[in-house]
């Protein structure tokens, strides 16, 4: 078994080292579409609805990329990938870009031969509690029973958090996500801990969702970012600035509805961003109006957030860390100039 593992690693390295650094952009233009790896079964991020139409924050980010390259949001083919197959699919060239709620980590960014682009969702582990518990902060959870999935970093994170804050906890460990939720709703534990985006989904299926709330504390860092193959800098720039364009548009107050009026704006920042003043497109190797197209056809970051995971969806997630830096969040775009 060990020998097999060593063999597999050697072969993987060998196979990866044979990658020529051909430009993904040329490949994609030649075949006429972008092959995007997505989750396939994560509601709000990447999942087909009952009509087979792909929806989600990651899917919309991929559409923005498609608009940037082709001027159309539909030049995409989606490959649903599991947590195990996602990185190989990218390494082997089966997909051109990975939009699959992947946490950016040092080892993935380096040893796996990937490059992560602009984070499109800052996730993190949080707590779900019944409102009647009367708790307003995770710091007040001393002595609480905590429902948690076993064998994940989730379990470790929560233990670390309680220890670091000098609190006691009684873990209730349950294998299956839906069973875990059932136990929590049945009152077997005071709080449930998981990634914040999933807590929102769990709360949505509660018998009475308004009786439950997610505490403001986030106890781990899960920056979810699109990834490309290491070494293709132009392609990475394009993926990067497709996502950043949506963030920048929100900051400049440009939405899919007012983008046409904004073309007439006299603000030099907006003029450069929308391609009225030329230069950005040539620098990145795309149409001068790529940012305009993205906002017009897909929307700004705030729009795709609200559409897929925001407070009016079944997930009902607040912006939190994903708000603009001007609103106290982490979404910050470098200037488009």
């Amino acid at each position, binding site marked *: 078994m060990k020998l097999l593992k060593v063999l*597999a690693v050697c*072969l*993987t390295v060998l*196979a*990866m080292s*044979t*990658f*020529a650094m*051909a430009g993904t952009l040329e490949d994609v233009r030649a075949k006429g579409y972008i092959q995007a790896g997505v989750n*396939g*079964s*994560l*509601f709000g991020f990447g*999942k*087909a*609805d*009952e*009509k*087979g139409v792909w929806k989600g924050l990651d899917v919309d980010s991929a559409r923005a990329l498609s608009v940037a390259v082709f001027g159309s949001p539909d030049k995409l*083919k989606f*490959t*649903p*990938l*599991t947590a*195990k*197959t996602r990185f*190989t*699919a990218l*390494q*082997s*060239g*089966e997909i051109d870009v990975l939009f699959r709620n992947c946490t950016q980590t040092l080892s993935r960014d380096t040893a796996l031969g990937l490059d992560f682009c602009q984070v499109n969702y800052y996730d993190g582990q949080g707590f779900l509690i019944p409102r009647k518990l009367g708790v307003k902060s995770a710091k007040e959870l001393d002595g609480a029973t905590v429902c948690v999935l076993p064998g994940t970093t989730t379990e470790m994170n929560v233990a670390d958090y309680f220890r670091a804050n000098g609190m006691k906890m009684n873990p209730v460990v349950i294998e299956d996500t*839906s069973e875990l*939720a*059932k136990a929590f709703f049945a009152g077997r534990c005071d709080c449930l801990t998981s990634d914040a985006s999933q807590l929102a*989904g769990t709360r*949505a*299926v509660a*018998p009475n969702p308004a009786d439950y709330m997610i505490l403001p504390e986030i106890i781990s860092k899960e920056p979810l970012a699109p990834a490309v193959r290491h070494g293709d800098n132009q392609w990475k720039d394009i993926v990067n600035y497709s996502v950043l364009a949506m963030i920048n548009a929100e900051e400049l107050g440009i939405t899919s509805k007012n983008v046409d009026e904004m073309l007439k704006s006299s603000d030099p920042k907006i003029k450069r961003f929308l391609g009225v003043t030329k230069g950005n497109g040539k620098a990145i190797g795309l149409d001068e109006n790529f940012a305009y197209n993205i906002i017009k056809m897909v929307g700004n970051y705030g729009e795709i957030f609200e559409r897929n995971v925001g407070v009016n969806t*079944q*997930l009902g997630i607040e912006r939190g860390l994903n708000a603009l830096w001007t609103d106290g969040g982490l979404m910050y775009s470098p200037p488009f100039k």
Partner: protein
Amino acid sequence: MELNANNENEVLVKPPISSVGVIGWIKGNLFSSPFNTILTIIIVSILWFSILPFLNWALIDSSWLPDANCRESGGACWSIISSNYKIILFGFYPQDILWRPITAIVMLVSLLCISRNRNYWNAFLGYSWLISLIIMGILLKGGILGLEPVDIERWGGIILTLLLSVFGLTAAYPLGIILALGRQSEMPVIKTFCIFYIELIRGVPLISLLFMSSVVFPLFLPEGVSINAILRAQVAIIMFTAAYVAEVVRGGLQGMNKGQFEAADSIGLNYFQTMRLIILPQALKIVIPPSVSVLISAFKDTSLVVIIGLYDLLKTTQTTLSEPKWMGFSAEAYIFIALIYFVCCFFMSNYSRKLEKELDTGL
């Protein structure tokens, strides 16, 4: 006269009502002793307390219409099926042209039904299969005759399950026979190769083969070449099933009397004639029951492609279940696909029993 009267009496006096008919059967079989009586009462009460609530859940309290509010009724939520049957059964196949996969599946099922009867086995049926397979391929794939092209990646649900199993089983069976013959061969290279192949494949679980095909294999391909994930999984399933079929067939070959080989030799048949005319027809007949078990389990094993992210029937169901609206109604969805799997497996085992009966020559 006296005799007649007696006869009449005999006719008239029926056995007591408690020993014939339904009551008699009940008394004789269910309440024949105190122990049996206790068992009957226990079993009936178990049935009463399990079947009744189940029927209540499944039929009476249940919601059937799409968009019904399932969380308010306490019963089964069949709405999950009626709202999502298109994506569960056909995956990402474009929903405005579903008539194409439906026609293809109807063609396949009717051909299978016709082929059940061995009287229809002739050249015409063979050609029908060939032509129908081509038509089915065209229907599914499109791209010519004005049909909108559909990528193979978009084939999902029952289309993918049937594709993987029908092609998997039909390709694996002949391959398995060849491997079995190879293993019996006297040529050392062929024999060693076959033994090595069979033992290697049987020594690893199907999941690891699927992982190899989906995670490791693509890395070895030259840059720019990529083989479709469905095809890779299909090949893995064929390779795996063939190894098991080979061992089953070998059992049949070893069960043949040595006299059969000698008889074939004595009338001057060469190796291929011996195998084709004498040995294989008998050997394959002996191994019908074990081959069918292999084929049935291979059919069910196709659902393992779920772990490499292919959207077969199981995966499309799981995808539907990941939507917040339908979370928690897994029982209904899984019962639905369990029924589909059951119908297919039952068809196969039923057919094998029929075939055994027809081929039974009392050997």
